[in-house]
């Protein structure tokens, strides 16, 4: 009986339930809701990108929107101008962005704390300017149009999986979100991941323990650039049109807000934060210009009253309800 009860209240159950909802509900919902869900999945991937470098490794990057933009534009240019297929262009865009992340990371990560944040912010602003100014390549302020949806995937038992409908696009993005979640979980529970978290706790100590913190930080930053590029590619593919605004640095900050509200350094945080901060204004039909304001207020409230985010709040609540199984949670990182 006790084991049954434990199973019922376990985190695994919560995850399975969430997965079932994510798979089962959209077909019953209208196209409008599905389109929001697609965006939530894409921004959740972005959130996981920031979670790796900030949530787990402790280096706050405000430049993730730039990687998102580079990924989307690399993909757009390769497909629209060079007529590459979806999959090779997807792969190339991700590799290009990862490489740029690696090259930017080498000098930027030598800096610590606010200096690193400023460099990433500056990088993001620069990329935004380049996307507008390099008209021949990017189409300037008009952006790029005609970005394709994923090519159909042939099924082993004949027929094919096509991604023309909104719903199939949703499942496509959800599938990759799940892969990224499994990837993150595996990374963080590995020895390598433990050293990343160690850097976020105390970089000096980690270095004194014989760990090359610089190379670990560069690795983490490159992974985060790759994840942001994946989100960028999906966004371009879903939206058909991309414009320089997508790499606007404030977008990067928005996602940082999602992550902090959800709970940085946790598995559920990126999804919960994105859900709350994206879905709530959308469902309440808030005027777009007010969204940023509302996000800002929510972020500030969380920073003051619940810095460990929604996940941290749930954990505390859980511990209060089931006093018999209180565990000691450190701040923010679960």
């Amino acid at each position, binding site marked *: 009986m006790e084991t049954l009860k434990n199973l019922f209240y376990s985190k695994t159950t919560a995850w399975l339930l969430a997965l079932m909802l994510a798979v089962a509900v959209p077909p019953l919902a209208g196209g409008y809701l599905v389109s929001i869900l697609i965006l939530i999945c894409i921004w959740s991937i972005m959130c996981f990108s920031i979670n790796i470098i900030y949530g787990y490794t402790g280096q706050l990057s405000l430049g993730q929107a730039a990687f998102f933009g580079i990924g989307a534009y690399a993909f757009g240019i390769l497909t629209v101008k060079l007529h590459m297929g979806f999959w090779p262009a997807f792969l190339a865009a991700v590799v290009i962005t990862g490489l740029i992340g690696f090259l930017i990371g080498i000098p930027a990560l030598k800096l610590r704390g606010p200096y690193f944040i400023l460099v990433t912010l500056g990088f993001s602003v620069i990329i935004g300017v380049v996307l507008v100014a390099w008209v021949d390549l990017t189409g300037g302020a008009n952006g790029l149009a005609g970005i394709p949806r994923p090519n159909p995937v042939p099924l082993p038992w004949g027929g094919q999986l096509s991604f023309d409908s909104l719903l199939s696009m949703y499942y496509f993005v959800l599938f990759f979100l799940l892969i990224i979640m499994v990837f993150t979980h595996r990374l963080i529970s*590995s020895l390598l991941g433990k*050293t990343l978290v*160690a850097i976020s706790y105390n970089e000096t100590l980690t270095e004194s*323990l*014989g*760990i090359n913190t610089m190379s670990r930080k560069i690795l983490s930053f490159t*992974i985060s650039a790759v994840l942001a590029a994946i989100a960028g590619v999906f966004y371009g593919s879903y939206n058909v049109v991309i414009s320089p605004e997508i790499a606007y640095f404030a977008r990067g900050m928005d996602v940082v807000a999602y992550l902090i509200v959800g709970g940085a350094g946790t598995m559920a945080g990126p999804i919960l934060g994105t859900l709350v901060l994206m879905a709530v204004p959308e469902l309440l039909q808030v005027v777009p210009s007010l969204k940023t304001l509302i996000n800002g207020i929510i972020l500030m409230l969380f920073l003051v009253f619940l810095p460990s985010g929604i996940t941290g709040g749930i954990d505390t609540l859980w511990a209060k309800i089931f006093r018999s199984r209180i565990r000691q949670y450190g701040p923010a990182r679960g």
Partner: protein
Amino acid sequence: MALLEVNGLTKRFGGLAAVEDLDFSIQAGELLSIIGPNGAGKTTLFNLLTGFYRPTSGRIIFNGADITGLKPHCITRSGMGRTFQMTHIFRNSTVLDNVIIGQTSHSRIGLLGSILGTPSARREKKKVIEKAKEIISFVELADQEDKTAYSLTEESKKRLSIALALATEPKLLLLDEPAAGVNLEEMGGLMELIGRIRKSGISVCLIEHRMRMVMSISDRIIVLSYGRNIADGTPEEVANNENVIKAYLGGYRVAQC
């Protein structure tokens, strides 16, 4: 041949010489204590030895190799472990996870192996955990393995920070005030631990203000004052050295405490 040899080591911060023209050596198996008034340059010396500071001039030879100017993680891997004065530990990790991180510098871990969970990565992880548990029982924290580090007592935190340094499998262990902030009884326990570390074949270099501890466990003591080495010898020699008495007590001789 000495395990560690320091020649003409100098570190200037602007016009201030924190460490000036320092020569000393540590023999294999030796316990050398570094004492001196506050601000004498003891911690600066540790930071120079472990690569956190770059010396202005001078050379550091460790285990037959010149390690001057190497990065901290390289120096640690070459066999020099250290603790910090402010008891650096990973406060929000469990005791076991703390020591596991200290162990990882010796394991080959790739990104792909970590993600895919290949048999070799799993073996590696198992090996690291086993080794970490060994070290935890060596510092007598086995019963607190699953506790979060910040909930430990001050003495246990000191033990954990030593365990972290031991996990890097050092030949020479630098301890920066391991007995600061613990009571007499706990100090005895730490002295016993340091004794066992020496028995296991690790040389120890100790910075400490607790004279009772320094006098009873050191083979040799060097005394720093204003970044200079003013005395070098056995505990008795140093205790009777006029320069040392002057540096500490301003010229008056008072009973040791």
